[in-house]
Each structure stands twice: as C-alpha cells, then as structure tokens.
C-alpha cells in the first residue's frame, strides 16, 4: 500500500499551478490537504504522473469579508472554520458543519477547496454550500469564473473544473438576520462517511426556503424552493414524503428502501433542526 512513482511540484502562484496542470505530458493531480488523495495514492486508486501542491500559494489562503459575505481561499482548513479563525457570516452554520467533518486530524489538514474539488458525494461542504447558496470561484489559464455551489459537482468525483483549472476560493453569502439553517448527517459512527445528509436554509426576509438532499450516490439534490416540501414551515419536520421520494426516485435512489428511508429522515430532521443563528 505504497504509491506508485509520481513527480511533485510546489508552485508559488496560481499561474504556475495552472501551467503545470495544463502541461499535458503527465496526468497531474492537485494536492491540497491530501486527506482523500493521500489514501487514494497509497491504495493506487489514482496514478498521477505529477502532484501539484498548491498549499504554498498565498492567494489560496486568503480570507476576505465584505458587506455581502465572505471569501474563503481554497486552502482554508476545516479546522480554521470550526475554530472560528475565519469570520462568520452564517450565524455559526459553517463552524457547525466543519466540526462534524471526519476527525479532527482530518480537519486540521483537509481544505474546503480540496473537499469541493474531490467531489465525493458524501462530503459535507458540497451539500452545505449548495444549501447556503455559495459560489465556487475557479481559476484557469483562460481567466476566472464562478459557478453556484449547487451546480459545481457533475457526478461522482466529477466537477465542472477543466483539467487545467482549480478551485481558487468559495464565496459565502452573508445570511440575513432571521436566517435559520438545519443540517443533519447520518453516519454509522463518529467521523465516518455520511450515508445521508439533509440541509435546509430558511431566510424569511428573502423568501428563501432551500432544501438539499446530500450524500446520495451522486450529486446533491437541490430544491431551490422547498416551501411545497415542508408546507411552508420547515421546523415542524413534516415533509411531503411522496414528493421527496419522487426526488430520490429521479436520482435512482428509490429502489433501495433503506437509503430512501434514511434520506427522508435526514431531510426531516434537518428541517426540525433549523436554528436561528
């Protein structure tokens, strides 16, 4: 269980990183916290010709707050968010989610950008940031672009990123004063991969009631207007099971009664759990 041979580069800036990624001679993988990539290398599930270590690029560590929200560089760790070492614009929602990611040792090194780019369906940030309405900021040789977090992942371990692009940062919107956020993760034991995640954001001032069914077999199911699912008020936990089940069926999750059950329960409990920040 040792990795096959690979080359290693640690560029000093974004341009250098994407140049390496676009080199074309070798299949290159971006290394951030390495908490998923490391084991995959050891298990020889991936055989990159080159690792591009982005942890020494200053822009990727940036943390910028403005009136609209917060920009977190891709290499900000889960632990930094958990510990409140970055500003909070979500009434504690991000810190709460961060604290539930895997184990502290993973959170110490694992990064928000790395988690998104890895696009494991069980990842917490994909579901959480889709519910919160965050944007993923992307850097590439053709310039910068942004996509909604809800549309960033395209499949299992697949995203909208081109091979020579990388996640530069995440823009987190500042939630309104009366915003409430619920997040419920089902996993077999502490720190284990999620089997189901429910996330609900309710912002009455902005008439936002968004629900996300995460940790599916593929991309999270984002319901932009979930008022129908919850009959308006989510915190009762009463959901339209038939409607939610249809969403799962469309994802091909309807066949397994167990998976369907725990996803519905996770969503209902996320709704019950919506807390005033």
């Amino acid at each position: 269980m040792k990795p096959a041979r690979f080359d290693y580069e640690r560029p000093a800036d974004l341009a250098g990183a994407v140049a390496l990624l676009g080199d074309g001679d070798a299949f290159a993988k971006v290394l951030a916290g390495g908490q998923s990539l490391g084991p995959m290398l050891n298990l020889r599930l991936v055989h990159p010709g080159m690792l591009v270590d982005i942890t020494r690029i200053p822009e990727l560590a940036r943390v910028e707050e403005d009136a609209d929200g917060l920009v977190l560089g891709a290499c900000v760790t889960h632990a930094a968010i958990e510990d409140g070492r970055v500003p909070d614009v979500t009434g504690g929602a991000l810190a709460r989610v961060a604290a539930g990611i895997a184990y502290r040792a993973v959170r110490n090194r694992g990064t928000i950008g790395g988690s998104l780019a890895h696009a494991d369906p069980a990842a917490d940030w994909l579901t959480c940031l889709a519910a919160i309405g965050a944007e993923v900021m992307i850097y590439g040789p053709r310039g910068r672009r942004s996509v909604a977090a809800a549309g960033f992942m395209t499949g299992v371990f697949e995203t909208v990123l081109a091979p020579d692009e990388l996640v530069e940062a995440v823009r987190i919107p500042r939630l309104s004063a009366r915003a409430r956020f619920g997040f419920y993760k089902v996993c077999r034991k502490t720190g284990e991969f999620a089997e189901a995640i429910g996330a609900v954001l309710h912002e009455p001032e902005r008439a936002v009631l968004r629900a996300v069914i995460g940790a599916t077999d593929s991309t999270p199911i984002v319901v932009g207007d979930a008022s129908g699912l919850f009959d308006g008020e989510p915190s009762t936990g009463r959901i339209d099971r038939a409607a939610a089940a249809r969403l799962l069926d469309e994802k091909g999750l309807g066949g397994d009664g167990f998976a369907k059950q725990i996803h519905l329960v996770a969503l209902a409990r996320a709704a019950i759990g919506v807390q005033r920040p």
Partner: protein
Amino acid sequence: MTEKGVGARLVRKEDDRYMRGRGEFVADIKLPGLKDVAFLRSPVAHARILDIEVPEARRGAVFTAADMTGVRPIRAVSGLPGFKTSEQPPLASGKVRQVGEMIAVCVADTRAEAEDIATEVFVDFDELPVVSDMLAAREAGAPLVHEAWGDNVYLETTVDADVEAVAATAAIRVTREFRTARQCMAPLEGRGVVAHWDARLEQLVVYSATQMPHIVRSGLSECLGLDHGQVRVVAPDVGGGFGYKGILLPEEVCLGWLAMNCGHPVRWIEDRREHLTASANCREHHYRITAYADARGRLLALDAEATVDAGAYSSYPFSACLEAVQVASILPGPYDFPVYRCKTYSVASNKPPILPYRGVARTGVCFAMELIIDAVAREAGREPHEVRLDNLVAAEAMPFDNVTDKHFDSGDYPECLRRAVAAVDVAAVRQRQRRGEADGRRVGVGFAVFCEQAAHGTSVYAGWGIPMVPGYEQAGARITPDGGLELRVGVHSHGQGLETTLAQVANEVLGIDPDKVKLVHGDTGLTPYSTGTWGSRCMVMAGGAVAAACRELAGRVVKIGARLLQTEAGEVRLEGGRVVAPGGSVGLADVANVWYLHPQDLPDDVDPAGLEVTAGYKPERDSGTFSYAAHAAVVAVDTELGAVEIVDYVVVEDGGVLVNPMIVDGQVYGGTAQGIGTALYEEMPFDAEGQPLASTFADYLLPGAPEIPAIRLYHMETPSPYTEFGQKGIGEGGAIGPPAAIANAVNDALGDLGAELCETPITPRRVLAAIAAARGRGDAE
C-alpha cells in the same frame, strides 16, 4: 499481600516506553542490506493457475512456488476422527482458494518498488466456481475447495442425547437461527516479519509480530526443513494480538526461505488492505437451536446444530476445527440443564482461514445461548434475568461438572447476575419504557452471562490432537550480581502487561521491588519453551511458573543470607527483599555479591546451581479456570434510522484473585470495546464470487472512542481452588458478552413491535429490516 505484590494496582512498567513512542516493533528493525517484500496476491477466490509470467527484467526479484523447492506446505491437522487435512503451500501451487492468496513474492529496495514489480507479473487463471457461504458449502454438489475430500467439511462432530423424550413434555419450545459475521481482528499493529540468515551461527533469525514464538519456530523448522536449533524466532514489542498473531504465517515461511536463499535480510510489513482482504478472519458462525423448557423457563434440553466457516485452509497450530469443537463443548454456557445434543460442522469455503479471536468461540456461543434464553423468557412471560437466575449453576454446587463435563472451578454465578441487575436498575428501565422517550427512540435492557474456560491445559488439548498441546509452563529466574532479578518466560506480552504482573509475582515471593525485575520474553533463543500467549493463560501458567522459580531461589537466598548473618537457615525469613534474622538483615544484593564475587564466604553446603533456576508449573487441575461475568446493556434504538446507542453498560466480573486490578480493568474495557464492535459495527462481507467487500477502515467499521460508553465495571473475587494465588484467566472475557447483551437489549426495545434481531452486527439496515419484517407479519402488539 505485599505492597507491590499480588493484588496491587501497580502502574505498568512497560508503559513508559510505549507512551513515549519508544517501543521497538518489527517495522522499527533495520538490518544492513535489508530489502522489502511485496506479495502478488490472487484477485480471484477460486481458480487454477495456468501460467505465471515474470518479465525478463524482473527475474531474480520475483519468486514463485516453482522456485521454493523443498519447502513443505503448512499442515495443521487434528487428531479428531474424520478430520480432513488441507495443505497450504506458502505460495499458491496449481490453484488458488481465496482472494489474497499469495502467488509470487517480489523483492526490491523499497516496498513501493516491490509493489511496482508485483503489478508487472501476469497470472493466467482458469476460474472455478466459488463457494462463499458456509451453509451452501455443506450442500451436495457445491464447488469443492479441496477436490480430494469429496465435500467441504473439515470435521463433523456429534454430542448425542435423547432430546425427543424431553421434547414431548416441554411446555416451551423455541427455535431460532443465529449468525455472527466474519470479522477481522484489527490489532493496532498488523503482522510483520524481518528475516535474516546468521552465517556465524548457521541460524535463521526471524523477527515476527507473534504471540507464540516457540510454536512459530516449530512450524518454520517443519516447513523449511531446518533443525530447531537452526531457527530463532524473536517477537519484539508487539502491538496487540487477540489471536491474530497466534498462527504460523505462510509469509513467515516465504521470508525465511528468502533469507536463506537471497543473501540479504528481507522484510514484510502487512498493510491494512492485506489485513482486511487477504489475511485470516474470525468469528463466522451459524446456529440452529431449539430450546425446551418448562412453563417457567427452566431449561430441560437444548438441541443445536452449529456451523463454522473455517475458510480455505486449516491454520497452524489451532487447526480449522478448534472453533466448532469448542462450540460443541461450551454452548451450554453457565447453565445447569440435563439434556444436550449438538452437531457441528467445520466447513471449508473460498475465504481466508479463520483463527480464534479474543473469546474464541465463546462470543458466538454466548450470542446464541443468551438470545435463546431471552426467547424462552418471552415465551414464559418472565423477566429474562429471572429466567437466567433459575437456570444458572448455583454457588453451592461449585465445583460443578456440567452437561459437557466442563469442570467449573468456583464462583457465584447468580450473585454476579443479581449485582448486574441491581447496577443497571431494571425496574427503572421498565418505568422509563412505560413513560417513553422525548425523542421517540425506544429503550431496552439486555443481559448476557457467560463463563470462560482459561489456561486449560494438557487434558483438554490432548483430546483435540492439534499440532500444539500445552503441558508444564516453565520460567527461568536469575538473581543478577547487583541483586536484581531476571525472569525468562516463553509466553509473550503484547499488551497484557506481563512485565509488570510477573514482577508483582516475584515481589510477592521474594519481596524484590518490581522496578528491579527484568522480564525477558519473546525470544526462542533466551526463554524456556512455551506454547505462548493465548487462551487467557499467562497469569495462571507463567504466573505460577515464576512463583515456583522465585520460591526455589528464595530457598537458596535464605541459605546464603543465614550464613552472612551467622545463623541457621531456620532462624531467618525473607521479608521485603531482605533476609532477616533476629539480630540483623542482608539484602538480595548482599547475597548476590557473595555468590558472584566472594564465593569464599559461601556456606559449605551451598546449592552449586547458584542463584539461577528454571522451574515448571501446572495447576492442580489442568481443566482450566472459569472466570465469569454478567454484562448488562441499556440501549436506545432510533426506529426511523435503525441506529442503536448504548446508554448504559455494566460489567460484573469474577476473575478470581486479581494480580493487578488496574490491568484487569483495562483488559475488560478493551475487550468490551471489541465486543461492541462485534455487536454493532464489524463485518467482513464477501460476495458470491468470494470477493471481500471491505478493503479499508471506511468499509470495515471499528468502534472508536465516541462509540464506547463509560463502562461501569464491578469485580467479584472468588479464588480458583486450583491455581497458585487463586487467579483465573480474565483477558478475553470483555469481548464475549457485548453482542449478546446488546442484541437482547435491542430486542427488548423492539419487543412490542414484534421485531427480533438474530445476527451480528446489528446494523441500521438490519434493524429497519427487522422492524419492516415484523410489520409485514403484523406482529406488533
């Protein structure tokens, strides 16, 4: 009792180096010229090997069975009539019978390069039908793991009785099927081997993470065709065993052969994927049991059929049948009932061999027996603990010979259970159940009572006729010139704390400070022969042997000391590590100083053997000590998600006289944590093609600290009448009770839904399936 002797809560001596990260494990050993080894392992469960192609450039770095001429296969036979023998070549020869079986060994400067080489070797397989389920394996027409046998059964045993006569009169009759999942033992440190040929001594030196260095030496000698004197096996610090390191590994044979033939030392360190997908497993049992009882639940008879999936090969030395044979003899548990019938099958399948894991067969046995008792209690309409109290062997009946002639040495089983009932407060749980939980979960309480035969010796093992029969245990003891003590034992400590507890025994006899006692163990070159560390035997056997050796030393010390004090041996006593006479005293250092440096001062009739002895020990009866325990679990079951939370866990146990109660606490806590793993998390599933479906700890779930509740532990101390200090073997017990106690608690919680779980682990999926099945049957009250 002395202050640091038997019964003292002494801090473990060995922990200083462990806690500072200064232990030396196999992977820490560096030898000049050492090369790393990786194995090419079979990706398929059952196939003929048509061809192995090694690239021209890799010749000399890759070896197959064809190269290892003269190496004999591993054969672990049993003398029981009808046992069919498997031959396990260290590298597959002609055929593979499990995923992970080794086909070629690759040698390189680093492990990564050795793994690179392994990917370049091509094997042409002719795949064969696979048998991956033990019940299917028993059926006629199943694919044959070992063609010459004609079936897939290593051994079939029968304990017969006239059950039918009882059945006709029994008011209660319950039948259940139980299954316990296949598990991996997952010690912190996996297996590891470093081997080199010592040209000066003409000796193969093998460093191995093993529980039984002497047995491994015998196995290596047999397979490699070497005299025992040409093999030295050293177990350095070892990070947990649990039975996983009680085996002669084919890897050890391969590395021994490489060291003898390649001219440089070699190393193999098992990685977690090998551990999970290729190496030996444990625990997989199936039971079909009918219990007959009177209307109050008093057991009248038990009729059982048990199957153990022993995998593709019989492992050395315990063999493929030990587990099922144990099932037959211990299934009746701590209960007193007259009629017992049991048929067992040790079955071969296209899966890795199984080994005895902490608790050996008892964890499965306890699960089956304790769940059937609860089923009987439900039929009788009584509290399960009350039915148990009516069936347990009574204190006044001790010592007691049970229905399978197990000789329970001492104890008060009903009192143990009563204390657990009181500690967990059954009445309060019942009240809580009536009240209901605010979060909608369902609460339940469950019990498990068991007794555990340990340190069982010659009379038990001789009948099984496996490659290893324990006899007398020996210890060497030597007083050093400065008055310290060296102990040499053939058992091995890999977490048990023997460096401390055996020093406490020495302190009890000689009064020497445990800090001045050095334990030498884990090295066939330095210690007396022993079958090693297994079966919770060390404290009874090695403890007894160390006491015997120290006692003999004491006699010699006293004689020399009396001379120094210018009196007669009869006038002095040994106290606090000093020879004391009415007029003064001398220490061990004074005595040692005379023996080693001033022999002119020795008495004329001194024992010329000096201050060094080897003494042997066997308990008065070698049928084993029986520690016992009652486990009680209170669980909360989330019926929407199927999740089980342990909200209270009580252990009341009796290990006889506890040599170091703090170490026993640790053993019980650790064992219980493993038992919780068996109950709720751990499972190594295989598909119909024999593919292991868990290859990392993300798939094979072990409980972590957050999953283990604050276990409330209470001790009873009923001495064994047969051992040196009254101590009993206690190391395994914690792992036996939890699956049964937790399953009974879950079934109690779900009782009014009509749901009942009879399989480990109790996963959310199984809980929801059981609830759904009950709803389908319309069982809910």
